[in-house]
């Protein structure tokens, strides 16, 4: 079981309380009608699948029901940080920027 720090409840909780939502920091294009099909498809469907650091969105679904972000290592499962929505990660690598 992962022990996850919820930045809103400000404490560690069991993984059972959380759900993983997917890649974080995906920004919806401001003018979707001006995009090519390829750009729109990559916004909608194409996600990073890194081996190493990954910024992903989680939801504390059984607790405060807030979404938040997490920097996690996809090989070791180590959670390096969790941070609130709207904030930027403090731990990044060239690949995750």
């Amino acid at each position, binding site marked *: 079981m992962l022990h996850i720090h919820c930045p*809103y409840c400000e404490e560690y*909780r069991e993984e059972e309380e959380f759900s993983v939502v997917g890649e974080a920091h995906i920004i919806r294009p401001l003018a979707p009608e001006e995009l090519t099909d390829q750009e729109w498809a990559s916004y909608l469907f194409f996600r990073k699948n890194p081996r190493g650091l990954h910024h992903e969105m989680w939801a504390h679904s059984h*607790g405060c029901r807030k979404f938040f972000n997490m920097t996690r290592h996809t090989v070791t499962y180590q959670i390096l940080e969790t941070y609130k929505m709207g904030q930027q990660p403090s731990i990044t690598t060239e690949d995750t920027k």
Partner: protein
Amino acid sequence: MSNSARVESPLEHADFAGLAALKINGGVILREAKLLGHLNLRGNANDPDFLKGVKSALDLDLPLAPCSSAQNANTTIMWLSPDEWLVIVDGVTEAAIEGKLRQSLRGHFAVSDISGAQTMLEISGKDCLQLLQKSIGYDLHLDSFPINKVIGTALAKSSAHIRRTGEYNFQLIIRRSFADYIWLWLQQSSKEYGLSVTL
């Protein structure tokens, strides 16, 4: 057919009155605090007018620290998330209190009467900690779960908000649709300690 509406707790069929009459002396004591008024309140905790409005309507300061709660004679406010609180009041008074909140709040806020959507169970007794340890993955030590703390957690794969009201006293706020499942779960998990129901 009667024309008068009748409110029923989601655990009406469990016949707590009949079970209480058995006067079982168990290690876990269960009581349904049924038909209370549950109001869900949402608003911006950084807005001083919102805090002032809640204070004037409920005569109680909104608990702002994560997982905290506040209580006076007839109202309990539980922190659910940074912009969401559960206000528990005596049954039947919830509509008047909802009106009072709407009158004293301005701008961006929401008050919803969710009394019919959930119910409260109170568990106590010398073995209630063991029962909870089987059901939730949270540290129940008084250092991590002090009195008046409220946590939203997974209870037997369903969700519940749990508030500690004493060293051996807890309130469980559970959803109506899961009430029967949790009632069955509590009966089975407390079998080894004995379950006594009180009214």
